[in-house]
């Protein structure tokens, strides 16, 4: 039986990991902080996947990000997706060679279709995660690119159809309104769009505790729940959340150390 997944997303900016709130970043600590507070080789047994995103707005340094990525994933035997600022085949190659098993793309889905096509063709659909950021304004779901800065003027559902047609492998759907709030996922939107999505759907934005993760995991067409909340799951946050979720008989793997 195919399991659902719990994913931890790390938001990186110029050397630091961040707590994001509605896409405004607050520095929390560097990789030493992260290793101290989240001992990945241990916490990995409470997770099913890691996503590491470079949200640097200016002075993006892909080489430095790749070095951090490489150190982070050392001896972690889980799928790793990385992205943020992929603008060329060589950016993607650098992430793959630094330990990424998949890459996450967002802006180029709109701005550089031939690059998307080349990435899919070289690495295969299953290696490409399409990230979609949206926010609700005047009851309309608006799609944003460029770290949530630029509005596309496209409705979410038609954008999802467009992105699916690019042969990407998974969709990472992130609510900017809920991001970092810890109030729970945007279930209204998720319930509205999930059943028509033909690729695996990862939901993000708003998870603050175990019950949010559980409520997301039990939605039929949701394949994975992601959280980027650095504060709420610190220490034994993930192990105890996972234990409760397994006790509820939700379909996730029970890992043995």
């Amino acid at each position: 039986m195919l399991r659902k997944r719990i994913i931890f997303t790390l938001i990186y900016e110029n050397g630091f990991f961040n707590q994001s709130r509605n896409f405004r970043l607050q520095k929390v600590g560097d990789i030493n902080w992260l290793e101290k507070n989240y001992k990945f080789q241990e916490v990995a047994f409470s997770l099913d996947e890691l996503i590491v995103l470079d949200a640097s707005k200016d002075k993006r340094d892909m080489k430095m990000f790749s070095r951090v990525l490489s150190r982070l994933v050392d001896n972690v035997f889980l799928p790793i997706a990385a992205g943020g600022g992929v603008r060329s085949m060589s950016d993607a190659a650098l992430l793959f060679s630094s330990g990424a098993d998949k890459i996450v793309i967002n802006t180029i889905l709109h701005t550089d279709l031939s690059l998307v096509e080349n990435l899919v063709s070289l690495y295969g659909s299953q290696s490409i995660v399409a990230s979609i950021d949206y926010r609700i304004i005047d009851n309309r779901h608006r799609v944003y690119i460029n770290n949530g800065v630029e509005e596309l003027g496209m409705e979410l559902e038609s954008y999802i159809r467009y992105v699916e047609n690019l042969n990407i492998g998974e969709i990472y759907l992130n609510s900017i309104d809920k991001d970092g709030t810890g109030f729970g996922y945007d279930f209204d939107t998720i319930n509205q769009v999930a059943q028509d999505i033909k690729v695996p759907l990862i939901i993000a934005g708003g998870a603050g505790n175990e019950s949010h993760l559980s409520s997301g995991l039990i939605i039929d067409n949701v394949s994975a729940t992601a959280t980027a909340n650095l504060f709420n799951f610190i220490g034994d946050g993930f192990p105890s959340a996972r234990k409760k979720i397994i006790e509820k008989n939700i379909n996730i793997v029970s890992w043995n150390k």
Partner: protein
Amino acid sequence: MKVAIIDYGMGNIKSISSALSYVGVNDTILTSSYEEISAADKIILPGVGGFSDAIHSVRELNLDKYLYESVVENKKPILGICLGMQLLGESSDEGGPNRGLGFIPARVSKIEGLNLKVPHVGFNQVDFSSESKLYKGLKNLSDFYFTHSHKMNTDTDINQAMCNYGDNFIASYEMDNIVGTQFHAELSQTNGLKLFRNFIENF
């Protein structure tokens, strides 16, 4: 113990080499050279991407001939992972009809099914025989990480373990010295590390 990881220009092999080093194999080399493949004790054929591009690169680099000599003639143990496992089969319909290396009597076709999300992504359970050398020490229906849009099937007994997603398909095979896994053991926590150890110790 020297392990050659075949390089035909694709994918993340970092986690494969760290998994090998985790189980005590530190002498790994990423290579497409005849001499190095011949000198290795074991071979790993990794792979991501499309079958068509991959098999073309393999042939362009003469890896089909080198692998035939090492694996079929000299019986050197090989582990094909994901696309690598599929390349060892007879054929695939991905990117047009393509012939594989033909070491294993099995064929690859697209995953299809009503309301089935494709690719098949995530941890799924593997149903294997208790006689298996590859899964020694693991509980049946252990979970491994899959990510693929094409699946392998056969009418022949190749000591296959099975996975179900829409339909049953081959999760792994072990035919003498030739082993393949559709899943990524290197991304499957302790289950995967055990499997690597078994490949190194039992083949």
